[in-house]
């Protein structure tokens, strides 16, 4: 999966979720709900905007495997693309347009981009600088973040999932992604971006073991996304304008490193002052490129930012009624930061 091409204009696509007429299984409902949740989560992150519509207006119709074949054939004959949701856990995907529940977010996003290309009738070239190996690495890097985002989108607080590396379980995530549990050592590793050297796998379990630290889901997702990569998250578009929905709780999320905290504050404050594209934000936030990208990745993974559809607004400018320091505000802030750091002994 690659980030959408920056220069492409956004188009609108209609998609219909067709509930089977004869099947009232809970699992079918869950599969459709999961797909619906993912569409919501992906808003603004895919090359085109996907909007739910009735089947008659849809470019793509999502059906359950139990759907009557004559109904599906009728939709196909109208030129609609069909995505099939399968709820048979042991089933293999019959083709690239079949999703086996519980399907991962990365697969759905990749499928939406494929469908988009198909609808365009144009094959979008992969970014020339990204070798297949690099793409695979990026996918691995983001797969755990994507998995946690999917769990949050599914909103199922009644279950717990264990997250395992090659040595066994390392942490436990509640089924709505709002809480996680782990040991103090794992939490420290999470905050430093050293969670695991091997791929992480999620599995459903009854309950976490006793005696673990209990933390909020934002903390898990924030640190995983922040440390995932110094390139943009796959769902971020460099030329799309984002605005801050609300400030993350840095009282909880900061890691105690002044440089990182200052950089994060600058990026967030810059977005708060003026909705910006990532490209524009890199210029405005006045922090190292890597810090800006990592902070944006974390903000977007946790849902603290959202796409702005309207024309770019103008920046808020504070009318300075405060006394002006002789050396200017920027010098004052440099001195004040140094002073506070010295006082805290760092």
């Amino acid at each position, binding site marked *: 999966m690659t980030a959408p091409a920056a220069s492409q204009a956004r188009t609108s696509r209609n998609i219909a979720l067709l509930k089977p007429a004869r099947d009232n299984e809970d699992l079918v409902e869950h599969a459709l709900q999961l797909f619906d949740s993912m569409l919501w989560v992906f808003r603004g992150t895919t090359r085109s905007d996907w909007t739910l519509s009735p089947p008659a207006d849809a470019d793509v119709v999502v059906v359950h495997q139990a759907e009557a074949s004559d109904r599906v054939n009728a939709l196909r004959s109208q030129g609609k693309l069909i995505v099939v949701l399968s709820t048979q856990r042991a089933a293999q995907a019959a083709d690239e347009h079949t999703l086996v529940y519980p399907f991962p977010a990365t697969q759905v996003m990749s499928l939406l981009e494929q469908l988009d290309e198909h609808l365009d009738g144009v094959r979008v070239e992969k970014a020339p600088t990204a070798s297949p190996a690099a793409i695979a690495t990026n996918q691995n890097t983001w797969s755990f973040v994507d998995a946690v985002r999917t769990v949050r989108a599914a909103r199922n607080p009644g279950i717990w999932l264990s997250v395992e590396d090659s040595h066994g379980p390392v942490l436990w995530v509640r089924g709505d992604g*709002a*809480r996680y549990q782990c040991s103090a050592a794992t939490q420290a590793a999470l905050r430093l971006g050293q969670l695991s050297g091997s791929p992480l796998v999620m599995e459903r379990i009854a309950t976490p073991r006793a005696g673990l630290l*209990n933390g*909020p*889901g*934002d903390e898990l997702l924030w640190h995983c996304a922040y440390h995932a990569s110094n390139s943009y998250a796959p769902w971020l578009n460099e030329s799309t304008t984002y605005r*801050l*929905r*609300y*400030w993350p*709780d*840095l*009282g*909880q999320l*900061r890691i*105690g490193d002044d440089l990182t*905290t*200052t950089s994060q*504050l*600058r990026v*967030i*404050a*810059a977005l*708060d*002052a*003026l909705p910006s594209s990532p490209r524009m934000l890199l210029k*405005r*936030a*006045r922090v190292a490129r890597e810090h800006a990208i990592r902070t944006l990745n974390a903000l977007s993974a946790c849902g603290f930012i959202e796409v702005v559809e309207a024309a770019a607004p103008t*920046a*808020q*400018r*504070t*009318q300075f*009624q*405060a*006394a002006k*320091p*002789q*050396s200017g*505000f*920027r*010098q*004052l*802030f*440099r*001195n*004040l*930061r*140094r*002073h*506070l750091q010295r*006082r*805290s002994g760092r």
Partner: protein
Amino acid sequence: MNAAGELKIVFTGPMGAGKTTAITAISDTPPVSTEVANNDQQAFAKASTTVALDFGQLALSDGTVVRLYGTPGQERFAFMWEILGRGAMGVILLIDANSPNALNDLEHYTRTFRGISPGQPFVVGIGRLHDAADDALAPFRERLATHGIVVPIFSVDVRKHEDTQLLIATVMAILEARMPEPEHGHA
């Protein structure tokens, strides 16, 4: 002392929210506190309270002094809020999450201070939050969102220097983000 003509950061909030504690945690010099015995024990069980203001300062190496003011927590001294708030680099509101009036306090102080200086950086620190709640800050964010207000709201323990430092650092970041672009390079 002309409070409007100096570099200052104001700490505000209801009685018992931790304003004196925050200034004590961060000030270079022991803060001057005008605390007296609390004769309003029914409203708030606290031995002493600030009746005029708290005052601390940060003396920087180039001789610049940033003053830290804590507003009195009792409503009858509310006339002081405007005197202190006007001309401040930023206002830091402290709220005790355990107070039954926490949400009303948040709304009251936010609307009052944003009425005094609408463009002024405004940062909220929520103390004594219950860790086990899924998103303990959500009610505070939502209360302000109903008035279209989005400001930084952080969980803090103002007894800790680094938590009070975060609140001040946020005021600075907001000011920087709203300043015109510099003509040359990075600051």
